[in-house]
C-alpha cells in the first residue's frame, strides 16, 4: 500500500493539505462543473440565481432546474445501481412512457378523476406494472444470462409501442388537481417533485450505505466471480436493482406526465436513458461496474438539466444546440479524467516531467476500488 501522499497530484508545491483533500474528493469535479455552469449563466443573465416567492411558492431558474431535473435524477438513481452491477438499463425511457400512459388513461376513464383514491390507484397501477417490467429485465439478465444491454433493449424498443397501445396512439389529457401535484404541484413552497426525488435519493442512499447492500452490489459488479466464491447470491441482487430502476423510471414518468397533465406515448421520456447514463458517468460511476456514487449521479443529472436550461436562456440557436451540448459534455468528461488532468498539469509545469503522476493517479484509483 502506498500512502496517499505519494500520489502525483499531491506533489504540487504550495497547496494546503485541505485544498488537496477537497480536490481529491470524488464529488469535487462534478460539483465544480455545476458551479461553473451556474456562474456562467449569471454572466449572461444577471438574475439567473435569483429566487423569489410567487403565488406562495418559490420561483426562479434554480427551481426550474430542480423541478425538470427531478425525473432525470430518479431515472439516473436507478441507473446508478444497475450500472454498479456492471449492467445497463436501456428500457427506462419506455418505462417512463408506459407509466405515464397507464396513470393518465386510468384517471381519464375514471368516474372521479380529481379524487385522491383515483390518483393513488393510478400511481399503484403504474408502479406495479413498472415493477413487473423490472422483474422481466432482471429475470432475463440474472436467470437467463442475457447481456443487460440486449435484455433491456427489448423493452426499449417494444415498450414505446406498448405505451402507444395503452393510449391508442393519442395524447391523453387529464384534469386532476391531485395528479397534477406529483410533477407540477408545490408543498412547503418547494416543487413536490423535488421533495419526492430527494426523499427517494435519501432512502436509497440510506439503504445502500447504512446496510451491507451497497457493498454487495459493488462486489457483484466489481468482481462477479469472487463474490460468487464468497457466497453472495448475485441473482437476487441483480433482479432487485432492475426492479428499483424500473420503479424509479415509473415515478419519473408520473412526474413528467403530471407536469403537463397529459401522457404522450411517443415522446415522454424519449432518450432519457441516454441522459441518465451520461448523468451516472459524469457523476463518477464507471460503466465497468463496482464502486458507485449516488451523490455524483445527482450532481450529474443536475449538470445535464442546467445545460438544457442554459441553452434556452442563452438563446443558443436550435440548429447548434446539440453541438453545444456535446462540447460541454466533452469538456466535462476531460476535466474529470485523471489521466487528462495529469497530462495537462505536466505540460503546464516548466520543471522536469513527473512520470509518477499518471501512474500515481491510477494507483490511487485502484486503491479506491479495492480497499
Amino acid at each position, binding site marked *: 500500500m502506498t500512502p496517499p501522499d505519494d500520489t502525483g497530484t499531491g506533489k504540487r508545491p504550495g497547496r494546503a493539505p485541505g485544498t488537496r483533500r477537497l480536490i481529491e474528493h470524488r464529488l469535487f469535479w462534478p460539483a465544480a462543473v455545476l458551479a461553473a455552469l451556474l456562474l456562467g449563466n449569471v454572466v449572461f*443573465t444577471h438574475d439567473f440565481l435569483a429566487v423569489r416567492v410567487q403565488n406562495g411558492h418559490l420561483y426562479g431558474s434554480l427551481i426550474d432546474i430542480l423541478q425538470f431535473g427531478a425525473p432525470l435524477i430518479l431515472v439516473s438513481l436507478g441507473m446508478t445501481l444497475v450500472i454498479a452491477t456492471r449492467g445497463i438499463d436501456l428500457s427506462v425511457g419506455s418505462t417512463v412512457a408506459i407509466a405515464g400512459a397507464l396513470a393518465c388513461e386510468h384517471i381519464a376513464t375514471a368516474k372521479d378523476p380529481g379524487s385522491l383514491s383515483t390518483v393513488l390507484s393510478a400511481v399503484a397501477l403504474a408502479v406495479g406494472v413498472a415493477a413487473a417490467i423490472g422483474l422481466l429485465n432482471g429475470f432475463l439478465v440474472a436467470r437467463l444470462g442475457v447481456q443487460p444491454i440486449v435484455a433491456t433493449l427489448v423493452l426499449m424498443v417494444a415498450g414505446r409501442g406498448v405505451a402507444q397501445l395503452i393510449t391508442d396512439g393519442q395524447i391523453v389529457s387529464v384534469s386532476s388537481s391531485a395528479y397534477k401535484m406529483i410533477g407540477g404541484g408545490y408543498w412547503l413552497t418547494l416543487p413536490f417533485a423535488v421533495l419526492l426525488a430527494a426523499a427517494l435519493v435519501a432512502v436509497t442512499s440510506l439503504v445502500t450505505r447504512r446496510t451491507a447492500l451497497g457493498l454487495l452490489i459493488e462486489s457483484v459488479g466489481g468482481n462477479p466471480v469472487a463474490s460468487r466464491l464468497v457466497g453472495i447470491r448475485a441473482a437476487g441482487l441483480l433482479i432487485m436493482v432492475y426492479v428499483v430502476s424500473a420503479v424509479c423510471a415509473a415515478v419519473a414518468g408520473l412526474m413528467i406526465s403530471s407536469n403537463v397533465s397529459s401522457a404522450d406515448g411517443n415522446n415522454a421520456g424519449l432518450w432519457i436513458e441516454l441522459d441518465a447514463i451520461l448523468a451516472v458517468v459524469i457523476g463518477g460511476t464507471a460503466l465497468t461496474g463496482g464502486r458507485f456514487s449516488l451523490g455524483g449521479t445527482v450532481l450529474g443529472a443536475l449538470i445535464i438539466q442546467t445545460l438544457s436550461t442554459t441553452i434556452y436562456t442563452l438563446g443558443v440557436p436550435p440548429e447548434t444546440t446539440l453541438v453545444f451540448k456535446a462540447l460541454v459534455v466533452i469538456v466535462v468528461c476531460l476535466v474529470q479524467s485523471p489521466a487528462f488532468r495529469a497530462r495537462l498539469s505536466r505540460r503546464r509545469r516548466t520543471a522536469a516531467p513527473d512520470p509518477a503522476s499518471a501512474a500515481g493517479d491510477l494507483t490511487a484509483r485502484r486503491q479506491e476500488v479495492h480497499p
Partner: protein
Amino acid sequence: MAHRALRVITAAVLAAGVLTACTTEPAATGTTGGTGKGSSDGKLVLGFAQVGAESGWRTANTKSVREAADKAGITLKFSDAQQKQENQIKAIRTFIQQKVDVIAFSPVVESGWDTVLKEAKNAGIPVILTDRAVDSQDTSLYQTFLGSDFVKEGQEAGKWLVKEYEGTSDPVNVVELQGTTGSAPANDRKAGFAEVVKGEPKFKVVASQTGDFTRAKGKEVMQAFLKSHEDIDVLYAHNDDMALGAIQAIEEAGKKPGTDIKVISVDGIKDAFVAMQEKKINVVVECNPLLGDQLMELAKKVAAGESVPRRVEVKEGVFTQDQAAAALPGRQY
C-alpha cells in the same frame, strides 16, 4: 448443414415461383380487383398508405379519408405504416401488385421514394401525395400533392399579429416555440411568420427555441423564456401541443395567457379550441387534416386521365376567440 441449405434453397425457389405466378396472372386470383380502370364491380380502387396513428391529427386524417371514400363510392385499400418507411414501400408495392387504380400516400420521410414510385409509374398507376411532400427530382413520378402550405400558415399567424397591433408603435416582444428542428412544418412556419413580421420593426423575436412539438418541452422552454426575458408580449407556437404546455408555464409565472402574453398557435386540435374558449389562446391557424373529400375528387380525376394542378391546398381557416365556442363542437380532432 448442406441438407439444411438445400431445404432453404428449395423453399426459396418455390416461394419465388408462387410470387411470379401471382404477378403474371393477377386476374386469375380475382380477389384483388380487375385490371386497368375500375375493379370488377366498376368501382374505383384507391390504395392509401398512411404514416401511422401517432397523433390525434393523424387519426382525424385517417378517419376523413375512410369516410370520404365511403361517400364517394370508392373502394379504399388502407395500410398503416406505423411510421416506418419500409412498411410504406411494402404497402405501395402490394398496391401495385393488386393493380389498384390510384395510389395515395403521406410519405413518412422526404427521400428514398424514387424506386418504388418508378415501379408505380411503369405499372401505369397514378400517385397522389397527401400532407407531406417528397424531394424527388423526377416530378413525373407523382401527379399532384394535396396538403397544407406550412409557409402560408406562418404568414397567417404573422398577419394576425400585425393586425392585432395595428396603430401602435410600441415595441412588441415575441417569443417563438419552434417545431422539431429541421422538419418541414417547423422551417416553413418560422419562415412564413418572419416574412410577414419583418416588415414592421416594432416586432422583435426576442427568443426562438425548439420545443419538439411536445407539451413537455413547450412548457420547459417557455419557463426558461419567462425567466430570461422580462417583458414578453406574444408567444408564437408552431403547434397546439407546445402552446398548451407553454400556457401552463405562463400561468405558473403568475401571468394570464391570452391577456398578459398573447398566444398564437397552429393546428387546431380540440384541446386548443377549449383553451381558446377559456381565452388562453388568442388565435389558432388551422392545419386541416380533413382532406378526404378533396382526395377522392382528385383520385377520380387522375384515374379518368384528367389533368390536375401540381399542388392542391387543403381548405384551412384562421380561428379567433369569438369563433372558438361555435367551432368547438364540430372539431373532429
